[in-house]
């Protein structure tokens, strides 16, 4: 009867001196897998422009209607680009279908996971909010 107790104490003792497997979250952040499915965002080219051509395939394929209101316009070089693009993270189920459907590699799931908000509106991203370069700054108001 005493033996299991001692085994337990031994384990505790061993762990007390090894590297902890928990993180001091939120001060410390977990490094997630490269294939982590965070929320979708619009990727950019080297020149900072969005790759999206507003083909709306992501909107079509999205099973939870998280992507909506894609409005296209004609650029000066007669190309097509989006002027409005809404990703509703309240609805997003992080399935990654949009990324798979995109013919231009213009929408990708990033590796962010801290998505809880007090204000729901912050989870509805407009085109600027959904664009990659600014995504790092987006969640500064977290807690």
């Amino acid at each position, binding site marked *: 009867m005493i033996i299991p107790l001692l085994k337990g104490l031994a384990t505790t003792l061993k762990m007390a001196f090894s590297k902890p497997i928990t993180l001091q979250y939120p001060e410390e952040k977990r490094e997630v897998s490269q294939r982590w499915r965070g929320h979708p965002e619009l990727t950019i080219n080297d020149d900072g422009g969005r790759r999206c051509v*507003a083909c709306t395939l992501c909107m079509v394929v999205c099973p939870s209607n998280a992507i909506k209101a894609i409005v*296209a*316009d*004609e650029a000066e070089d*007669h*190309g097509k680009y989006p002027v409005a693009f809404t990703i509703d993270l309240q609805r997003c189920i992080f399935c990654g279908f949009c990324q798979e459907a995109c013919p231009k590699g213009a929408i990708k799931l990033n590796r962010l996971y801290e998505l809880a908000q007090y204000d729901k509106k912050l989870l509805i991203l407009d085109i600027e909010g959904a664009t990659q370069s600014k995504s790092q700054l987006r969640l500064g108001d977290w807690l």
Partner: protein
Amino acid sequence: MVNLTIDGRAIQAKPGSTILEVAKENGIFIPFLCYHPALKPIGSCRICVVDVKPGPPRPIPACATTVTEGMEVVTDTPRLAALRQELMKLVLINHALECPICDKGGECELQNMTHALGVSTVDLEAVKLPPNPDYVSQMVERHPDRCVTCGRCVRVCRDRVGAMAINFTLRGYFTELASGAQPLDCEFCGSCIDICPVGALINKQFKYRARAWDMVKTEIACPFCGGGCTYQVHTKDGKILRVVNEDSVLLCGRGRFGWPVVEADDRLKTPLIKENGNFREASWDEALDLVAAKLTETVEAGGAKAVYGVGSPRATNEANYVFQKFFREGLATNQLDNPGRYNYARAIKAMAEVFGTPKLEGLEIGSALVPPYHSPLVVKEAATGSGFPFVLGKLADLPKADLVLVVGTDVTPESPPLGWGLMEAKDNPNFRLVMANSRKTKFDRYAHLSVRYKPGSERVLIAGLIKFFLADNPDWVPAIKAAGLDEFKDSIKITPKEITTKTGVEEATLKELAALLAQAKAPAIVFGSEVMSQDKGQQTALALADLFLLVGQPDAPGSALYPVAEKNNSRGVSEVGVLPDMGPGYMPVEGTDAGPTLEEMLDLLEHDDAAAPKALYLLGGDLLRSLPHRSRTKKLLKKVPFIVVQDAFLTDTAKLADVVLPVAVHAEQEGTFISSTGQLGLINQALPTNGVRPDWQIISQLGTKMGFALKSVSPKAIFKELAKKMPLWAGLAPKLSAPCPEIKAMVSGKFVPFEVDISLPGRRPYTLIIGKSLQHSGSFTTHHPGGTLAVTGEAFLKINPEDAQSLELAPGEVVKVISSYGEIAAPVKLTADVPAGVVFLPEHFAAPAANNLTLNSNLVRVTIQKG
């Protein structure tokens, strides 16, 4: 019928049909790319190849092979699949991979075919070609790098539209879609856009606005001309994005690109009431109460006849029917007419004189429930009918005519579908086209005989024609039972010399035409508003009706009269009884006196007659803009104490009104139109009304406020009530034409002598013809941001280069055009299409307003002075 087997299935097919057609009818899939049902097959893409026994040992194209008795067709073998895949790869070698941004993506036949044939990779290589896109042309954008050289656009443009604006350059792999120049020099009908299987030709209005699968499709009848086309409006979020004719692809420019009129900046949104000379916005209730009170007041003071109504050739049959009911049942008067009085109604009167008003027998109200917009009247087996509607042609029959005499109309601008009909008729090698007009028009290029007469001399021309015809065929017996030929013969006293001097047409030309008419087995006569709008238009229509009575073969399909109704419902407004002397179905009014016509009503106003109306109710119809002699019309309308106008825009006439009620147009309403050729077109509502109301509803609500029980609750119910009173519409349903072909036509007529006096008053040197231009329909298409306004944004005075030289005019120079009744300024366009001494001006624009110059006709003598 021909018996054959396709993939082992025994099939019966119509002789003369192709393997592809038969397979499609029987639901057997044969892939194709260059074939289109609207075009003659050319068998160029070879993707539709099939194995045929008995036949050559190699596969043959299904689209260009007609079926024969005992034929065994195999549509799918490993060899055929391999061939098709290989052909597809050749098409795809350097096809621009722009599907994500290409407007055709999602409805692209190349995409679909690539999937169907299972082509996943293209292992062929070829030199890259420059893309050479055309961004500068109006309406159409061209991307030759997406072209699959199927030639559909080239063929539809050449064989169906007759514009020949696009073609191929170079050969083989380097073949490229080109027009010889940028920008395109074409009619801008856009038919090439919708026939293109890929995105090589795209609609600039639609570019990037939606993907093919995003839109809701609603079928409506085109609300522009009287052609009666139906098309699908594609809407998204309550806005039209494009219109497409999915049946035959063909639409004209204003049909395809004219819809932005719905979104025009100057659309009225709320009722307007005039106070102290200025309009103020009002609520519907306030405006309708005011109108009801004013009309009641007028009726109490001056009797029911003090109110006069003008119906609308733009409004639906239902609205016009309720309108005439408002007058006939509500006010118990016949004080109403429609603006067609100045053109189409003249033809009706003339034809009714010669062929009689419609009389139908053997119809009964069916017991079964009928679907909405179907006539409840059933045609019994022994049904017969007589009267002029039975000599009016149907659109589908026009290509069956073997001689078409076109008098006084520029076919394509007035009625594009008739133009397509003529193009189709041209496929018949025995077909003869005779174009009689004062100026050169598009179809002169296809005419076997062009008759160029002096403006306004049509009646002399026809008198001469009848004279020569009867001289060459003294024993001629008209195919139609006709009375009074001998007296009629004697009534034509004009001498051959007079004919030549008055018309400017050689005797030999007329004799040739007479010979053509005598030989024809199915002659048709097309005449348009350039004839009907003249002051003696009714006499000219009478002459043409007489001519048809003489030569017509009503038993031969296609042999008919084709008067061109100017607007979408010019024919319908008369048929449902917005006439002072005839009720619905051209039934003469009984019990009450016929009211004055629109012309007579204006005369009453001019003479300050006691019978002149004290209140006018105008259902649309910008009278100032459309009636001749604008200053007189304005003066007379100002005399009317109270005017109500129902219109979508604050037109010049509406500005004179006391109350303006904004109405729904285009796809904002529901209802029906009757086309120029008798086809019932149905509009389904596709757009929200945004505060405006459909015409029928306004009249009905006004009726309720005035205590009339019009019992009009919905367009469907109104149609049901209306159709019961219309024997002429028995058996009618959307897309069918009245009168029903099941009714046996017992046409007979009597020759009515017509006037040959053709003097055009005045001594001024030039004769001005006021007519239609291709991209516009009345003034409806001239509101910004109108679609076709981009193509034809202003009116040019067309003048012969010789005249321009003698006046020392440069192209584009603004000149003063002066008649005895007014003066306008217009830029000139030099063209040999108008003969020397004749000038032409389109009627559509607010400035220059051509009807400032006219008296009572679309012809007027003018002087032209340098700006």
